[in-house]
């Protein structure tokens, strides 16, 4: 038989291994559930299946497309190829303007309608989110 000390050490290592595996498993699992993918209007248009999960859409706010009433704001996100109508209730950032880049987070109702729960703040006039740049670059 092994001594008590060896057994203890063995137990210790096993516990550490189990915690490690558990940690990695937990993290990866929740990553899978909580990750938000980014798509452009064209990608949504060409996708075979409608993504029902929370996603982010980026592009330009179309000219003369913003309209407001007491409860919601509607506007159109375009990547100059395809467009998507967005309805939104909530706070908007200062740099939310027509013909400026925007990223909206929310869920798709169908291929043309998007219900946003968050509009992401951008803090620099000249700054374009890398995702939006990439999405517009594909045109």
């Amino acid at each position: 038989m092994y001594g008590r000390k060896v057994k203890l050490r063995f137990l210790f290592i096993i516990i550490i291994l189990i915690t490690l595996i558990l940690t990695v498993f937990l993290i990866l699992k929740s990553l899978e559930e909580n990750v938000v993918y980014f798509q452009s209007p064209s990608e949504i248009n060409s996708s075979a299946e409608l993504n029902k999960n929370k996603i982010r859409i980026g592009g330009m706010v179309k000219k003369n497309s913003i309209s407001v009433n007491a409860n919601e704001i509607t506007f159109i996100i375009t990547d100059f190829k395809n467009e998507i109508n967005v309805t939104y209730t909530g706070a908007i950032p200062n740099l939310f303007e027509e013909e400026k880049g925007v990223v909206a987070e929310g869920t798709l109702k169908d291929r043309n309608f998007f219900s946003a729960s968050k509009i992401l703040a951008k803090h620099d006039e000249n700054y374009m989110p890398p995702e939006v740049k990439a999405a517009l670059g594909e045109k």
Partner: protein
Amino acid sequence: MLYSTIGHYSLILGLGVSLLIVFSSVKNFQNSKTVGINILSFTFLQFFFVVVSFFSLIISFVLSDFSNETVFNNSHTTKPFFYKVAGTWGNHEGSLLLWLLVLTLFIFIFILKTKNQPTKYKLLTLIFQQIIIIGFFLFLIETSNPFNYLFPSPDEGLGLNPILQDPALAIHPPILYLGYVGSSIIFSSALAATSLNLVSRKWASHIKKWILISWFFLTLGILLGSIWAYYELGWGGFWFWDPVENVSLMPWLALTTLLHCILVLERKSILSSWVIILSIATFTLSMCGTFLVRSGILNSVHTFANDPERGLFILIFLFILIFLSLFVFFFFHKNEQKVSHRFFWLSKETSILINNWFMMYFLSVVLIGTVYPIFLDVITSKKISVGPPFYNKLLVPFLIPFLLMMAVGPRLKWIKSQLEGKIYLITLLIISILLAYLILKNFNQNILINTVLVSSAFYLFFISSRDFFSDKLKNISQNIAHFGFSLFILSILFNNIFSSEIITNLKVGETFENSETKIVFESLNQKQEANYKSIIANFNIQNSNGDIDKFSPELRIYNQPIIVTSEADIQTSLMKDKFIVINLVQNQKFFNVRYQEKPFMLWIWLSVMLIAIGGLSGLLKRRL
């Protein structure tokens, strides 16, 4: 023009002195009893050169010398004096120069103040520190020189991003950098001590001061950034799990773990390898922070300048440092003398060790959440983002055992502890659970996890407050910090549970009303300031008791660069913050209004300050 030249050549001279220091340290290494007055004066000279360079940059900013590219990009003649000065480190080049300034300052103080340690150790620390300093000199001069010359010199600068024109953000970078850079001393010293096989109790109590200093500043720095984000970004919160925030939280977690380990090393001379690894990790994470923020890889609030060349340089530099430290660790580190040190399961060191694991778990969650999107983008070019739900889900449940260990751990003795005479531990636990249950029940919040969380936070709160009145209080700094932490968690919990928010779009003169609150948009004023035009909206807000509060949130339209910012109007009281912020919807008469009531906001800031004060008192106690 003149000052740019002075600044530039000062930098080059500083780099020259670096080589001189390394050379004379190596020469003195074998045969010197003391560090030598020449090395001390070289270190001072280097610091002096960097100070000259830094002040030349400040003067260039104050004089609005637009022949300097950095000044041109980040300043403007109409900017207030205070922000001309603060703008010096509000940009990439200037902030790196500030890094360098703090690096040279710290190593000078280190050489000057370190007594009772072997000369070889001091010299070796100096050499390792100089490697870092040389790296920063090269980085600064090669890829981000603050003194680049523009010809012909423009008449007007581009201006500083208005959201950075804020007192909290003016002092946030220097304080944060004191924390970051303090970890460089810990790093160099840990490597030096490992190479010379000096990792001992004596070394532990010496380096503990430096750990406390950088921990104090890092805590304060994060706090300032968070306060700024709260009132300036108008997102109505204090922590958004934004990558840039995470990047400052990671070294903090590592440093906090290190702070606890060094106590074990100081008392029991165990865990030495762990301490070394943590020292390396803390500095590496601080460097990573600078790398991620400054390279423009992260899509975040701070992404202003991005230049792939800079990113590459820091990345290579980082790898050199990591390889160097791993090399030193594996080849020189000898495990502590074979003294049998038994761990009993119920002892202070076990509880510290267990909480260390929790900290490491928190650290890995934050690390993975922050870098995973980057990796996925590089490998599959899918763009993703990881939001607060991820962190809440993975971190919050583990806070419960963490808080309990934090409460019980300090009550245990070193080596072996008994449970006898500790009935109060159980009594207080029961009281905490009951109290939490009653409070939440009273407000119709019956979520189990909230109740358990609140009870464990109350538990820590009661136990650490009880200790303030105990006559056997041994470790006041620990107690203040732990008490602060319990207060912190409690305030966050109550803040989250009891916050309320109204978001609506209103025109001037319109009224929003629901069962509890009535918001009246009274009127609109305009005002012209030196570098911005301000639109002030006046609101009357009536709560269910009929009390009326007046608010005037503001929109500022800056002229250079043309940017609109919202200034939230916040009414702070002991119990709750009332927060209102407006945004203009383009081409419409509507204003987007967000009104929030956030209980205990003030206590979040105060409790973090308490935590920091705990660290500071630990430092002062040593000095007395």
